[in-house]
């Protein structure tokens, strides 16, 4: 079994007699991308604040790379890169100066590393302009750059795609995947956007009302229905005989395990024109809404 890079143990936070976080425990492993999912006010940001030392837990502890955040703050936090909500930078300085500023606060971030990160987030052309003139998405990219500067082993991102354009989100997703796989970085992404979490994450931790109510691995076998579109339709229906199917738009939803897909495709390809085969990931959303009880924001229990 791999050692977790971060262990959150029985974390609790009480503010003004309200129990905002209740006894939350979770481990994070290298190379894994975890989604923090929960309705507004669930306590995602509060948890992240405690994991980064911005807030002191009422009870429980956070252990990063074997070091207690509370007792050995400097050593523990070195391994962490973070964006908490909107990344706020110094507006009166250029993006580059901002990065230099934060680089000075870490050991061993070279000028070359700064340039590399700037390239990775695609800000080369505007980096010497004042941050005050940046758009929301550009600030978000700069925020990501400062979080990556020191090659953290643990990356915490609170609503990181807020304000990114579609191309930006895509690049961002690829980049996270890349550093998780090649550098073994453990990543936490908080969001209330299911689709985003689904595309990006290996597993999702669902938080509601300050409690961790479920941790789910995401993999394609979860979604056992696939949408298949092919012409002619009648022929397709014949070929799908034996599976449970239902009509959907221009094709059919087919209940089929992932492993059988290649075999089915081979069979289909020789007989019909296949236009689309895609997994139906509706299940997660359904499960989420089911578990968290729809849209209304819960009152915090006392």
């Amino acid at each position, binding site marked *: 079994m791999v050692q977790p890079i971060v262990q959150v143990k029985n974390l609790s936070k009480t*503010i003004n007699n309200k129990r905002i976080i209740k006894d939350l425990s979770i481990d994070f492993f290298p190379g894994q991308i975890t989604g923090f999912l929960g309705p507004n006010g669930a306590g995602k940001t509060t948890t992240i*604040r405690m994991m*980064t*030392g*911005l*807030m*002191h837990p009422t009870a429980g502890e956070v252990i990063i790379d074997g070091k207690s955040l509370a007792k050995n*703050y*400097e*050593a523990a*936090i*070195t391994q*962490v890169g*973070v964006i*908490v909500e*909107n*990344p*706020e*930078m*110094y*507006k*009166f*300085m250029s993006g580059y*100066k901002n990065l230099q*500023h*934060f680089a*000075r*606060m*870490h*050991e061993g971030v070279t000028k070359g590393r700064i340039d590399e990160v700037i390239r990775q987030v695609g800000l080369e052309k505007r980096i010497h302009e004042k941050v005050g003139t940046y758009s929301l998405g550009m600030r978000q990219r700069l925020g990501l750059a*400062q979080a990556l500067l020191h090659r953290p082993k643990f990356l915490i991102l609170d609503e990181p795609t807020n304000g990114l354009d579609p191309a930006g989100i895509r690049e961002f997703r690829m980049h996270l995947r890349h550093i998780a796989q090649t550098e073994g970085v453990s990543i936490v992404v908080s969001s209330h956007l299911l689709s985003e979490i689904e595309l990006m994450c290996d597993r999702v931790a669902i938080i509601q009302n300050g409690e961790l109510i479920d941790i789910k691995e995401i993999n394609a076998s979860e979604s056992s229905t696939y949408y298949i579109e092919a012409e002619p339709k009648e022929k397709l229906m014949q070929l799908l005989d034996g599976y449970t199917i239902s009509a959907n738009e221009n094709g059919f939803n087919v209940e089929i395990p992932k492993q059988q897909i290649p075999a089915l495709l081979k069979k289909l390809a020789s007989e019909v024109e296949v236009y689309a085969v895609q997994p139906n990931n509706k299940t997660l959303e359904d499960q989420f809404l089911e578990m968290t009880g729809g849209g209304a924001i819960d009152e915090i229990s006392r």
Partner: protein
Amino acid sequence: MKLVVNEWVKLWSKKSTWVMLILMLLLVIVPAGVMKYYDESSSDNWQQNSQQVIQDFEKIIEEDDLDESTGSYYYETIMIENYRLEHNIAPNGTTMDTFMRNMLEVASMVITIFIVTVAAGIVSSEYSTGTIKMLLTRPVARWKILLSKLVTTIIFGLTLYLAAIILSAILGAIFWGTAMSTPLEVIEGQVVQIDVWSSYFEMFFLSFGSFFMSIFFAFLIGTIFRSSSLAIGLTLFISFMSNMVVLLLSRYEFIKYVWITHVNLNQYGTGYTPMIPGTTLTLGLTVNFVYAIIFLVITFIVFNKRDVTA
């Protein structure tokens, strides 16, 4: 150390910092021009003036019933003027050192205001812009960050002092030459010449009382309440009202142990009388020191403990 560099870079990236420096320099340049201009129109027979002063003051002493301190002022002035006539020492108009002295007085007042602005804003602005969370998620203990801000504020204040002193020395030398004045003082019934530079530096170091206490106080309020305007307002209010409050409360013993009585250390300098009789420079320094420690300890504890929700 790198942290101080960071704070220094941030400080000078703000326009207001440059405005302060430029205002500071203008406050030395403009009076220099004005004083030079008026200087040229007044130069006549000083012996006559001295004699006139002596006659007038003697008349006042004979006729009026003066209390001790005003009386001694007239006596001492007469002694000094007599000394001048005997030894043929002309009273100087403006010279390089008197100009520098005047400018130092102006500068320490203005610097106090500027430094309060900086001390009040250097922590609270991080909260108001939300950048505090970027700063406090680094592998640097919180107290180090706070200390770097305090050190930066002090260095900035000393830089302003240095700028004012150097510029006033240069302008003084250009406009009035390098000849010094001959200040006279009555000490223990004797007229003596006092050393120009030792009295200059005495004044300079005594101005550190209000310099440091204002920084620490503004820093405290700015950190606790995260509002720079509150910190600036409160600190300046206290420093302007302190004389009045101290005088009002002067009959109570406890006022001797409140820092505002001692913020202005110049009252203990040569040729001044303390606001509260019986207080000394040693007492002043001790009280200031104790309060400084209290302010700093509170500031650091609050900053370390606080949850950041920005």
